């Protein structure tokens, strides 16, 4: 049996349900010699802002038990350079590329979406309304349902393909934010972005990150992310892209069984650039083991 791994996110057909996450796969060219990019479900590129950003001061990374904190600060080349320098390579790839858009104001999100609209090689847009790592990094849009709905509604007409809203887990009620994104017209929600954390170097008595707070990712957060997906799957009808600490096919299956239609691999790509392909292979073996012909039959199956 060769199980069917294909899924659909809005109008987008994905051959496999395993994406690579924004900020953890660069603009994909960095991986082109290391990984068979054609085996990925889709590539979500590093967050794009209107102007280039040099990012936060170092140190930007601190390891914690089974996790890592980052405060990169949305370092990126800006939307114009993205279109001029990065998109030509991305366009050559045989898999869908999703542009992740971030900003400080609603107008900035709109402007970036507008510049990307209709460009060949952009299959969809993910709105990052949940970055914990910059002042005004959009996290306020991710913690307030009304703001989440408004920003989605405003970007919606500017995005021809699927519009995905990426949710912050740093809220009391993530289901409410997901419902707001759905009402605003999102085709899908992706979750989770990183959890707000901090670590202190006790020998120097100073925070380990220049910004004090950073985003926690990696296996440590997996149980929290699975819970978020479970909650959101009970609240919205649009598909969910689940992520947070996925390293193996079984980890990915947890998210699918909790209600995600697709999954995304972030930090694990730092441990192994081909991690997303290993996750895909693991999912395939899991389906064979479970004697399950199609991944779609497993979406939400643990909720029964």
């Amino acid at each position, binding site marked *: 049996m060769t199980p069917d791994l294909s899924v659909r996110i809005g109008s987008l057909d994905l051959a496999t349900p395993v994406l690579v996450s924004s900020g953890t796969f660069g603009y994909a060219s960095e991986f082109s010699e290391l990984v068979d990019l054609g085996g990925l479900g889709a590539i979500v590129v590093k967050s794009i802002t209107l102007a280039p950003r040099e990012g936060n001061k170092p140190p930007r990374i601190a390891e914690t038990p089974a996790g890592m904190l980052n405060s990169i600060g949305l370092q990126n080349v800006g939307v114009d350079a993205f279109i001029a320098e990065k998109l030509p390579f991305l366009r050559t790839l045989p898999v869908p590329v999703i542009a992740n858009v971030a900003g400080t104001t609603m107008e900035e999100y709109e402007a970036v979406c507008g510049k990307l609209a209709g460009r060949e090689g952009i299959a969809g847009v993910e709105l990052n309304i949940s970055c914990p790592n910059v002042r005004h990094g959009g996290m306020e849009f991710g913690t307030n349902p009304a703001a989440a709905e408004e920003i989605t509604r405003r970007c919606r007409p500017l995005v021809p393909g699927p519009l995905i809203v990426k949710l912050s887990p740093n809220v009391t009620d993530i289901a409410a934010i997901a419902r707001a994104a759905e009402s605003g017209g999102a085709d899908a929600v992706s979750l989770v972005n990183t959890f707000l954390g901090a670590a202190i170097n006790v020998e120097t008595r100073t925070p380990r990150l220049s910004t004090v707070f950073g985003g926690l990712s990696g296996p440590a957060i997996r149980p929290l992310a699975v819970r978020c997906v479970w909650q959101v799957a009970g609240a919205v009808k649009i598909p969910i892209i689940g992520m947070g600490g996925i390293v193996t096919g079984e980890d990915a299956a947890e998210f699918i069984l909790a209600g995600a239609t697709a999954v995304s691999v972030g930090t694990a*790509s*730092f*441990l192994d650039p081909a991690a997303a392909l290993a996750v895909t292979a693991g999912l395939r073996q899991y389906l064979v083991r479970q004697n399950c012909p199609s991944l779609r039959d497993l979406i939400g199956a643990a909720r029964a």
Partner: protein
Amino acid sequence: MTPPPSRIVKIVSNEPLTDPEFRELQIDAGAAAADAKPGQFVHVRLPGTLDPLLRRPFSVAGAGDGRLTIVYKRVGALTSRLASLRPGAELDMFGPRGHGYRLEGPKAAHAILAGGGYGAAPLLFLARTLRERALASRITLLVGARTAAQLLWRERVEAESSWLDAGFATDDGSYGEKGTVLDLLMARLSDPAAGVRVCACGPSAMLAGLARIRPGLPAEVAAEGHMGCGMGVCQGCVLPMVPAAGGPARYARVCHEGPVFDVHAIDWAAVKAARL
């Protein structure tokens, strides 16, 4: 596809040096060993656990016959576990990666290599490579450490005296000069410095000191940074570079543009302020 990006490799030996907090690890690395250049790093994990999670970088200290050597100091989670592993145990290794010391271009009249602490690890490898490739007429290797026991590979360095000048410094004067490796370097530099090329590796305070010795001194330094990915993607390992006049902060990735940089390109004031 090019060679697999990460692979399980086996430990060949894992022996303490004169100070047992420092160990020399030999790895059976196959083809990866042939490509290694001095100044590059290998990126290492322990298989089968998520704690420690991220890979850790170590400078290549030697390569040949399918083997790679690193020297490591026991400082935390991974290096402590590493110290307990025996020959035959498996590691997950990625690399060698990064840009090492310059291995083409003009021949130097005098290459002075200066290493502090475990920073000396890549320099004997570099000295041998410079000699093989005839990149310097004269090669000096200066090694500094806190104590005589922590001087890396002292006897091995001294055994190469037919072609390698050596100098040693210890903080406590227990071997060589009492002082730092920069003191040794400055003494060597009091000769007219034309044709001198400095290659250094060590703690950032040492490298920052090197930058202050002489404005135009050609010096390449291997720097450190906290790495997420080790392949230029995460932007985690960045070092502040001297910005354009009035321009915004500029960063370069230790894992990608480095680890070896022109000492004068790095913004040492910003490095110090950030306690890197």
